[in-house]
């Protein structure tokens, strides 16, 4: 197996396409990645001359689809968007299309062939992926080459390395514990929550005009950050993403107190996979499992 280089191929094409789209007026802004003072970060390129700022390497962790979220008025104001998407990001675009939060013609998608990204983006230079530094979600990725795109750049990439411990293994480890220990584990993790709602804000699929936590009549979720309110919030956040979560990991990456949200998210993916044979993809026609049903769905837990 060949190992992916830290900087992916196709960056020149990416820059050229971005420049052409801007010059032709097909889009008003290209949202991609750039080098920042520390690490890589999102960039909003509006001037074709700036297209050369665009990069794509293993530090390009961010799911930029969050900027297509209908709540982002200040981004929408910029005009039609051209967006750089990895395979996982394209799944989020499909999610928005599926839920009528976005029209296909309102965005130009520049897909990049991806061989995985790093766990952290804030590094001075891109690194080759290793079991120690690879984002665990990249392992087993089924969409390294997005299909929901208007342009696709780069060479096909090898599979990313297997992380030291995969997310599935970690979920399985928790599944193997007695219930009391799982409860102790999760209540301890959730008690760290400071209720900044970063997880919600960065989620490309948290699209509600008014989040349940902001509804006050009645006050469904207690707003202060004590463990009881935190459990309600974190369980609800996860449930609302059931069958919708694209596993981009942004909620966990942005969490300022390090709650391992990807484990809950992965568990939900496993649940819908096992029960409803559902896998999230970048096909907008692939109906999400919650909000859908079959007459013969499993009901072994119902008396």
């Amino acid at each position: 197996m060949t190992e992916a280089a830290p900087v992916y191929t196709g960056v020149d094409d990416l820059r050229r396409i971005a420049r052409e789209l801007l010059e032709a007026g097909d889009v008003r802004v290209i949202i991609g990645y750039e080098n920042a003072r520390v690490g890589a970060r999102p960039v909003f390129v509006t001037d074709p001359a700036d297209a050369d700022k665009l990069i794509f390497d293993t530090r390009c962790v961010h799911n930029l689809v969050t900027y297509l979220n209908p709540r982002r008025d200040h981004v929408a104001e910029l005009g039609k968007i051209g967006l750089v998407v990895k395979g996982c990001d394209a799944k989020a675009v499909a999610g928005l299309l599926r839920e009528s939060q976005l029209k296909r013609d309102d965005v130009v998608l520049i897909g990049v062939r991806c061989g995985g990204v790093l766990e952290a983006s804030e590094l001075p230079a891109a690194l080759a992926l290793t079991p120690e530094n690879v984002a665990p979600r990249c392992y087993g990725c089924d969409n390294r080459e997005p299909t929901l795109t208007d342009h696709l750049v780069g060479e096909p990439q090898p599979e990313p390395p297997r992380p030291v411990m995969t997310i599935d293994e970690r979920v399985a480890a928790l599944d193997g514990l007695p219930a009391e220990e799982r409860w102790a584990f999760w209540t301890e993790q959730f008690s760290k929550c400071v209720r900044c709602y970063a997880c919600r804000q960065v989620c490309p699929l948290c699209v509600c005009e008014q989040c349940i936590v902001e509804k006050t009549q009645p006050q469904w979720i207690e707003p202060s950050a004590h463990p009881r309110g935190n459990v309600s919030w974190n369980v609800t956040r996860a449930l609302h993403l059931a069958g919708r979560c694209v596993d981009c990991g942004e909620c966990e990456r942005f969490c300022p107190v390090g709650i391992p949200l990807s484990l809950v998210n992965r568990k939900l993916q496993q649940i819908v996979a096992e029960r409803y044979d559902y896998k999230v993809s970048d096909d907008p026609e692939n109906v999400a499992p919650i909000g859908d049903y079959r007459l013969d769905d499993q009901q072994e837990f119902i008396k």
Partner: protein
Amino acid sequence: MSETHDDFEPRITAFVCNWCTYTGADLAGTSRLHMASNVRIIRLPCTGRIDPLFIVKAFERGADGVIVSGCHPADCHYTSGNYHARRRFAVFHDIMQFIGVDPRRMTFSWVSASEGAKWKDVVDEAVRSVRELGPFEAYRALAPDAGAASPTGEAKPAPAATTEVTP
């Protein structure tokens, strides 16, 4: 956690649909079936209206167990509310189990308007298993004033006590 808590009367909240289970529970009453009296019924139009958050809220407010019950498949007054609910509760059931809630605290059932006797069984069984599990102290320990509301200003109450178990 296997010993029975004899002197403990579980508090159980039941979310039931208006058309089937509520009528079934009513039938159980008018038929004078003897059953446990630990259940408070909250009537909703349809199981499809029961947000899993209701169950979380019930635990928050001190319920030791929860029952969710509605029309059998194919019998929904609104055609498909119970089918939608079935998927939602399946996911909820599994994820609550994952975070460590004993699934025996959550009973899901289909009870039709004519199944007064089944309702009695569901209630008795739910009360029996919750009684066996004991009060849901683990959830109550999450309350903001339950643990360390220490006057020194320690911000975070201590995490819930852990039972020492080797995996």
